[in-house]
């Protein structure tokens, strides 16, 4: 008996140190990555200044007087991220509510099967799909307008919204399924209808899970590179017209890193730093929203 407890105690200690090691390891890697990117981007930031980089709209790294302004790309990234989330969040959450709370079991099972497959396919496929559909439609209908070539911010937004939907839906459905069935019963027993039950009880009770669905979706959207490059046109424009091409921060890095050197290369790392800061801000905002939601009730 005593020997047994000693053994299990040893086991516990072993696993505890294993957990601790893996946490330290992943933390260390993250730390190294951050140091590396900041060190590599530092020369450009020092030469041009952080604010000069994000406020200057001119990006011409190969000119005799090279410019490294990221303003248009920062704006394109922010706008396309926000607009695609604005589309994907309501559609995703409402679909999840339908699947979890209204759909007959068979229909739910069938749809979830496909949604889970969609969540797993590479995002380039979504880019390809939009390229052959929306981009073509825009081109066919707008090719006589100057600046319209099909590849556009609208197409990029469509790709981002589409590829984040399966993630938002699956995580939301999981959290809606997990809330206590007795809440639903109480609500119906008090004379509420399905819509009232979903909006007043279910979505509130599953709020934290749905928020993490949104955070995951947002993370996918802001980091997406290839699929966006495929349909965005990748030209540096002020993102004022949905039908014209734009370039995002991630695309900028992916497009030019292969041949960049010297200050140009450093400027691309600086692009990464700015992207990093943007992601931090986005996560911070979402966290504040979650916290506020968390204290107002429950």
């Amino acid at each position: 008996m005593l020997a047994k407890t000693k053994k299990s105690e040893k086991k516990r200690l072993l696993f505890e140190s294993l957990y601790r090691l893996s946490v330290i390891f992943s933390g260390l890697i993250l730390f190294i990555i951050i140091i590396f990117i900041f060190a590599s981007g530092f020369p450009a930031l020092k030469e041009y200044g952080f604010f000069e980089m994000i406020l200057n709209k001119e990006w011409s790294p190969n000119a005799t007087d090279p410019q490294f302004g990221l303003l248009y790309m920062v704006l394109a990234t922010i706008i396309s991220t926000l607009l695609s989330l604005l589309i994907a969040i309501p559609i995703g959450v409402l679909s999840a509510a339908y699947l979890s709370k209204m759909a007959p079991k068979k229909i739910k099972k069938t749809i979830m099967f496909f949604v889970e497959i969609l969540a797993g396919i590479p995002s380039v496929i979504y880019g390809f799909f939009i390229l052959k559909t929306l981009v073509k439609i825009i081109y066919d209908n707008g090719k006589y307008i100057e600046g319209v070539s099909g590849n556009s911010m609208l197409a990029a937004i469509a790709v981002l919204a589409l590829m984040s939907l399966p993630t938002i839906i699956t995580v939301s459905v999981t959290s809606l399924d997990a809330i206590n069935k007795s809440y639903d019963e109480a609500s119906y027993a008090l004379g509420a209808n399905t819509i009232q039950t979903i909006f007043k009880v279910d979505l509130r009770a599953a709020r934290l899970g749905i928020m993490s669905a949104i955070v995951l979706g947002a993370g996918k959207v802001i980091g997406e590179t290839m699929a966006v490059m495929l349909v965005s046109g990748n030209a540096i424009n002020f993102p004022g017209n949905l039908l014209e091409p734009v370039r995002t921060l991630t695309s900028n890095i992916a497009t030019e890193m292969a041949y960049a050197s010297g200050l140009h290369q450093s400027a691309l790392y600086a692009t990464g730093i700015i992207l990093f800061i943007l992601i931090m801000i986005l996560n911070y905002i979402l966290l504040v929203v979650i916290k506020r939601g968390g204290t107002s009730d429950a």
Partner: protein
Amino acid sequence: MEDIFTIRDLNLYYGKNHALKNMDIALKKNKVTALIGPSGCGKSTFLRCLNRMNDLIENCTITGQIIYDNDNINVEKYNVIELRKKVGMVFQKPNPFPMSIYENVIYGPKCQGLTDKAILDELVEDSLKKAALWDEVKDRLNTSALSLSGGQQQRLCIARTIAMDPDVILMDEPTSALDPISTKKIEELMETLKNNYTIVIVTHSMQQAARISDYTAFFLMGEIVEYDLTDIIFSNPAQQQTEDYVTGRFG
């Protein structure tokens, strides 16, 4: 005496499982009726027929008539929302919403479109008083209902049901998850509630059934074996099975 529910030839199937068999019973208005019987005999299932909660269960078929207020409620087109406004339900496990105490009480009325703050305030106070909870929570109406004790939560659930001003309150083992003191409080509460409401209560406690009910129905394997005045069921039942059960000699 007036009947509030008249059930005729009620049969219920969960898929192929015949859970309620040929039930005929009339429940008296403004009385407390207790449903007793061993586990799995269909008490909860029967109770849930009275406010059509079984609608939520896929593959559940119900035949026969359930007459409430001169209308058969066991027909597709009967307005369940209207029914549930009049026939409230308190569950075995206290299940307040993860919201404030105040919001819990006004949930039902708000779903019916009541928004006037003054009326809602009054309703909250009135309902909590009727549920004997007001004095304990009046200073913290905006704190989460989940911070209450189990017994308080159950009284909140009763207050929430009372706020709808129902005719009937269905209770499925409302005290089985509670300590003796909370149980006593809720039993006393039922004593006062029975003047204004019809109460149908499922219970596993013979003492509770004997203490609080006017009528008792004994269920066994999906059938109603005997239904009579509580005094008769406990002192001089017609069926041997009933006597065995209430005296604890069962099984």
